[in-house]
């Protein structure tokens, strides 16, 4: 695949079609994106962000990609937003139409379109920049709106669309796990819990009318089974009425990749989640350890589905574990996790979701030696796995992830002296799995639920 922006390529030639004319269609789709009636979801922060940037550069001082790349121009957050902003000024503002040179307006060419299509997949939309901007510009919103425009002209990474949202609607999960395989996995996990912990836990599946429906990122069963096992042990120890669901009963995958690139795909999937929860007649949908799934189901859903159409509560498994430990519903002994443990604030759970203290209370109760990464909480540095990046490997992209975001996280991890990093998000787990390998760190990662389960006093 040839170079269209930097040394990496997220979009295949088949998807990007770099030699075909797409500028006209892009501009038509962009025009729609600027109309509130057609694009109401984030219209206000989008248009204000396009109009108001003062080019002060504060955002750049906190952008992991920009900093770790050695402050390369092309990775400056404003350089990226300007790719869209210059086009906005040229075609959709009066000064830009009349005096483009004077106002930083530029024509969109096919080459610039190619470069933009790639650059919008170098930012994880961690929004560390938005957090520090003195006038509340959100470069992350601009990146997402650009991705939406590209999706409207059929340019979206396979991992997110064809093998992501579309696969999830077809199979009930983005992994393509059929019901019989799912049940085989559950049976195996019950055996594993008994083998490793010495007690039997029954994992309910498809129980109608249960109080809690726990939905994991379906990838966790395949790649991070310890999180699923840990969560089952915790639910069991709490003695609550809970269930998992199989793909036979709708969507059994908490993910919603539409969060990353498309309101249309997002809506289709969130509606499928709501239908699934309603049909099972459950009272609380518990989101497993997945950052963007939490964002989608706890917050974004509120704007799209009216309350009467979603007759259930949504909680993160972290919220439940925190509640249950504090009220003594589950008893934990920190001596059972003696190694030094640190915690990475996932962007969607922390900066977006506001859940800083819940995981910390949990980990301090369950681990003997808890340490902070520096910085943390609101200023946590994105690990680089978000936005689906953890599963994007084409065009040497893993190297990009490791040499930018990954480099900074490796430094933080080393400085903490921890031998375990607790993670409550699947993309983070995938990314840290690679970071630990790439930088040969003497660290392993663990799901929060895994650590809680280790600490259980039964």
């Amino acid at each position, binding site marked *: 695949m040839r170079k269209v922006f930097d040394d990496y390529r997220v979009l295949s030639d088949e998807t990007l079609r770099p030699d075909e004319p797409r500028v006209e269609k892009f501009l038509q789709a962009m025009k729609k994106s600027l109309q509130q009636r057609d694009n109401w979801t984030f219209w206000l922060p989008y248009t204000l962000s396009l109009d108001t940037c003062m080019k002060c550069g504060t955002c750049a001082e906190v952008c992991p990609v920009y900093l770790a790349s050695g402050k390369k121009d092309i990775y400056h957050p404003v350089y990226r937003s300007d790719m869209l902003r210059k086009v906005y000024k040229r075609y959709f503002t009066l000064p830009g139409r009349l005096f483009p040179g004077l106002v930083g307006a530029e024509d969109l060419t096919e080459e610039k379109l190619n470069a933009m299509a790639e650059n919008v997949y170098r930012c994880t939309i961690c929004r560390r920049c938005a957090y520090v901007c003195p006038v509340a510009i959100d470069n992350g919103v601009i990146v997402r709106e650009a991705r939406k425009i590209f999706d409207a002209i059929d340019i979206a990474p396979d991992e997110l669309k064809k093998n*992501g949202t579309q696969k999830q609607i077809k199979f009930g999960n983005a992994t*393509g*796990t059929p019901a019989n395989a799912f049940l085989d996995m559950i049976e195996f996990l019950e055996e594993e819990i008994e083998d490793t912990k010495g007690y039997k836990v029954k994992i309910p599946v498809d129980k109608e009318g249960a109080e809690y429906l726990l939905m994991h990122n*379906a990838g966790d069963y395949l790649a991070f089974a310890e999180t699923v096992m840990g969560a089952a042990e915790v639910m069991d120890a709490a003695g609550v009425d809970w269930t998992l669901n199989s793909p036979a009963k709708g969507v059994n995958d908490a993910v919603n990749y539409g969060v990353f690139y498309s309101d249309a795909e997002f809506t289709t999937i969130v509606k499928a989640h709501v239908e699934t929860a309603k049909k099972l007649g459950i009272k609380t949908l518990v989101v497993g350890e997945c950052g963007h799934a939490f964002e989608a189901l706890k917050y974004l859903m509120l704007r799209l589905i009216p309350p009467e159409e979603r007759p259930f509560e949504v909680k993160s498994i972290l919220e439940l574990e925190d509640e249950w430990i504090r009220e003594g519903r589950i008893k934990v002994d920190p001596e059972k996790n003696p190694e030094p443990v640190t915690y990475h604030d996932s962007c969607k759970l922390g900066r977006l979701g506001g859940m800083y203290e819940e995981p910390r209370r949990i980990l301090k109760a369950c681990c003997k030696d808890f340490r902070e990464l520096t910085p943390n909480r609101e200023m946590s540095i994105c690990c680089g796995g978000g936005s689906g990046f953890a599963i994007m490997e084409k065009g040497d992209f893993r190297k990009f992830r490791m040499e930018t975001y990954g480099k900074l996280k490796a430094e933080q991890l080393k400085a903490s002296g921890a031998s375990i990093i607790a993670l409550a998000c699947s993309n983070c787990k995938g990314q840290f799995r690679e970071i630990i390998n790439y930088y040969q760190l003497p660290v392993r990662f663990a799901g929060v639920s895994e650590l809680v389960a280790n600490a259980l006093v039964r």
Partner: protein
Amino acid sequence: MPAINVGGIEIEVDEDGFIADPSKWNEAVAKALAETEGVTELTENHWKVVNYLRQYYQQFGIAPMIRKLCKETGFSLKEIYDLFPSGPAKGACKIAGLPKPTGCV
């Protein structure tokens, strides 16, 4: 679409190097795919993993859980990475002729 050469025959692979048509897989194809993964020799241990993956995939239509793969083959995850540097999903599944695993894995 890119392709790999297997004893003079062109076998199509996708952008990530996974076989486009799993029905075209055979041991010679496995060896060629292994070369693309930097695995110069497929030992008995490699075949143990590959055969388990294929058997599970044929039965359930999806690759097995990594934890189950380790249990059933008797290899630790580290040993699997030693055999297949890209790991169980991107390395072993590729050589075993399974389609590329999708979702957050």
